[in-house]
């Protein structure tokens, strides 16, 4: 009877069966077992042969026929998985702490972490310095020749490039900032003596650059 059925319904040629399985695997929402594929094909088809032909055809292509627990599906080639992620670049304002730290380094370089903290009046987190390093805007300068030999931070050529400066010396001074309205005069706080002179071991050459 099997023979009779086969002659009654002429199965499509192998190439056509391959096309059919290709379309079925493409359109279904879940991997299909051979019997499920056979169910959808005209009578007399050989889904195993069609799958084998498809596997060969798609070998090395951007998508491949894979088998999972006896079910077949098209899947992205393993080496192209990275294409399935889209990177959305989102510029966001640098945090206040980071801009201030960057500004202090730019104006007072080379500057140690203790100096930055002293000028900011608050601690500087490691993460802030890491971020600025990662952005390529600051780098490590020479170590201070003071107790503990602390590292210093300096700005980089990438920093100058980003902010459109020829040299760090082009940064306007306090007076110019004030004249530009960027610095609102609020008394003269800088004349007060520091209680803790240890924190500022190199206060003398703090403005060395400028």
């Amino acid at each position, binding site marked *: 009877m099997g023979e009779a059925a086969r002659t009654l319904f002429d199965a499509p040629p192998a190439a056509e069966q391959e096309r059919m399985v290709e379309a079925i695997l493409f359109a279904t929402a879940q991997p299909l077992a051979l019997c499920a594929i056979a169910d959808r094909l005209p009578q007399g088809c050989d889904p195993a042969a069609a799958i084998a032909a498809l596997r060969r055809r798609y070998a090395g292509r951007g998508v491949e026929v894979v088998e999972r627990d006896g079910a077949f599906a098209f899947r992205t080639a393993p080496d192209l998985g990275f294409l399935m*992620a889209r990177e959305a670049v989102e*510029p*966001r*304002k*640098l945090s206040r702490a980071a801009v*201030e730290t960057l500004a*202090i380094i730019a104006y007072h370089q080379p500057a140690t972490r203790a100096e930055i903290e002293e000028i900011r009046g608050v601690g500087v987190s490691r993460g802030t310095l890491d971020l600025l390093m990662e952005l390529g805007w600051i780098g490590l300068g020479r170590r201070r020749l003071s107790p503990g030999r602390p590292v210093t931070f300096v700005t980089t050529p990438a920093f100058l490039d980003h902010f459109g400066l020829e040299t760090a010396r082009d940064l306007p001074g306090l007076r110019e900032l004030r004249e530009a309205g960027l610095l*609102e*005069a609020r008394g003269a706080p800088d004349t007060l*003596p520091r209680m803790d002179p240890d924190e500022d071991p190199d206060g003398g050459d703090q403005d060395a650059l400028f």
Partner: protein
Amino acid sequence: MPDDFGEGFAGGIAAGGDALVVDVDGFEGPLDLLLTLARSQKVDLRRVSILGLAERYLAFVSEARRLRIELAADYLVMAAWLAFLKSRLLLPPDPAAPGPSAQDLADHLAFQLERLEGMRRVAARLMGRDQLGRDIFARGLTEPVIERRRVIPDATLVDLLRAYARVKTREDYAPLHVRREPVYTMEQALARLRGMLGMAVDWRVLEAFLPEGWALDPRARRSATAATFAAMLELVKAGVAELRQDGVFAPLMLRARAVGPHLPHG
């Protein structure tokens, strides 16, 4: 019933001899009814007799009236207009009459019918196309695209300058411990005085005991003076120092109290 129209659309009219069976519900407005009537003439729409069509429409409406079928207002508006058109078509054309001629009006009605039929024809062709999800299929097993949001921190030169300006003017808003810096405590003064007392065998003015760097700024100087004075009183109370002032507002003088038997003050 998207493919109800086009070829063989009979609408709700069955013309059996003279009898006109009316079923207004089957029509989508008077234009649809007109088109159906025109189609039943089995001629090219462009050669349809508008006059004949108007007559058939009016017959339809009067039949509906006879059967006491209520027709929607727009069917009656069309009937009135067709009656008007019919009367004008029957009159010899008057080239002096203002506005569109009867033939213009008839032509436009023919255009409307042809256009409606044209739209129905293409609508049927459109719906007869292979449709997505019915005849053509998209990928069933889609892979989601993972959005990786990469935040790029950015700052402008103005941000940088403002930040520096902000840092340099922060004192007003500085944390409490910074504001307390110019306060010289009595404990600090006491510690300083105890250290200096050994050398203070002669009378020395209070100002000589002020710490370095506290004499210039008036606020700092005031704080240091007060602390030093209080510390002096403590030392006197402890019996290790002597304090002297020669007159009101005269300088305060301090010296270490001599060890051993001491002379009473006169």
